[in-house]
């Protein structure tokens, strides 16, 4: 039976759409774990990245830790934490947050550091406080990179949350791990496809978000100057 037929058969069974083990619940769980972990990771990582980027202090340490963190196998982190702390939601969330932090710190730092020194100099020269410089100049210019850091982090968390089914977490990973346990390929494939779709959806959400919040002046989407723009009345927005 082809992969698509198995997929359709599993999805087509109404029994798989209800109850605490149904597809909607699993999707909700997965999204919930991801949002929660990403939120906590961002609360920690954003200020750290902004501070390091703005002051340039501690950059080496932060980058080194970030690089080292990338080499940590997520399955190892998960199993180790759960064995150390015990089964339950908390150790898994801790693992997800820990793995979600480095991409945000690194990207935020890179973004702030990438702002032209002339621009920052001009901002200070106009009398902005350091906080103003960060909030009104550096952050908006760094925003595309900050968002791409959040996106990497979110994808990392979606992926790790899938694996976390192995250490008894809910979410879509359950279909993969449970299906594997009983050699039910249809169930595994369904879980895998749903996780892949969820990841792609997360990717799209961030692309859309970036499009909305990033200034057109930074993306090249602003219309090219034409001869009469300069003369247009200032009431056009």
């Amino acid at each position, binding site marked *: 039976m*082809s*992969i698509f037929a*198995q997929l359709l058969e599993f999805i087509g069974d109404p029994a798989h759409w209800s109850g605490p083990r149904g597809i909607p619940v699993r999707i909700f769980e997965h999204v919930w774990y991801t949002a929660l972990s990403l939120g906590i990771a961002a609360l920690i990582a954003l200020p750290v990245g902004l501070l390091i980027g703005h002051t340039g202090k501690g950059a080496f340490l932060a980058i080194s830790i970030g*690089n*080292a963190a*990338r*080499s*940590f*196998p*997520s*399955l*190892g*982190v*998960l*199993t*180790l934490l*759960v*064995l*150390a702390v015990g089964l339950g939601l908390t150790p898994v969330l801790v693992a997800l947050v820990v793995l979600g932090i480095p991409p945000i710190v690194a990207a935020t730092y890179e973004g702030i550091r990438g702002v032209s020194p002339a621009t920052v100099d001009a901002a200070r020269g106009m009398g902005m406080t350091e906080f103003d410089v960060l909030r009104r100049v550096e952050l908006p210019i760094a925003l595309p990179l900050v968002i791409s850091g959040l996106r990497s982090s979110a*994808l990392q968390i*979606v*992926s790790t949350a*899938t*694996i976390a089914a*192995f*250490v008894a977490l809910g979410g879509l*990973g359950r279909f*993969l*791990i449970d299906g*594997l346990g009983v050699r039910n*390929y249809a169930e*595994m*494939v369904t*879980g*895998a*496809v749903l*996780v*892949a779709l969820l*990841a*792609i959806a*997360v*990717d799209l959400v961030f692309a859309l978000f970036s499009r909305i919040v990033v200034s057109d002046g930074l993306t090249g989407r602003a219309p090219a100057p034409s001869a009469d723009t300069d003369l247009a009345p200032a009431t056009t927005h």
Partner: protein
Amino acid sequence: MRWDWIQNNLENIGELLAFHLYLAVVPVVLGLALALPIGFLAVRWPRLYPPMLATSGVLFSIPSLALFIILPGIIGTQILDPINIVIALTIYAGALLVRPVADGLRSVPDHVRQSATAIGYERWRQVLKVELPIALPFVFAGLRFVTVANISMVSVGALIGIGGLGELFTDGFQRNFVTPIVVGMVLSVALALIADSVIVLIQRVLTPWARAGRSS
């Protein structure tokens, strides 16, 4: 930590380590072989560049465990066949490397490209002898990223029975036994750092000019 367990299992650990290295490195090589021509085409025909980026972004966003499971259904292999891991990681490596390859080729200054043409390089020789060498720092940055990512990703394969050092994680977890997990972590991280250093070393040998500007 139970040191005696390590002593008793040295041979097994060595095998897992070697297999881990194989599962991580072969896809990087294959991925680079894929990314070079694709990246080149995307530079040659700029209209291909945005869709290429989008495709590689989507491919890379798919969680590895999902890809390990979907792949056999698509290409008809057995689910426990190591080839699935190799192909999946090759897809990631290729997807990740097309961008550095394309960006590297695009970084060749126009005046350099122009003078290579005007000097009388044939097209293929210009790409091989001038453009590709200048793109190398970008390609190597990509290679470092991909190799480190692959080494940590291989472990996930343990969930479907093929994971190199990852098998130490599943094994340790199921037996509620920390030692193998720590050993697996240490070896995996060490492998990543060593592989990274080796790539940096190769890069230094191949691109002595890249450091020239800074040393003077």
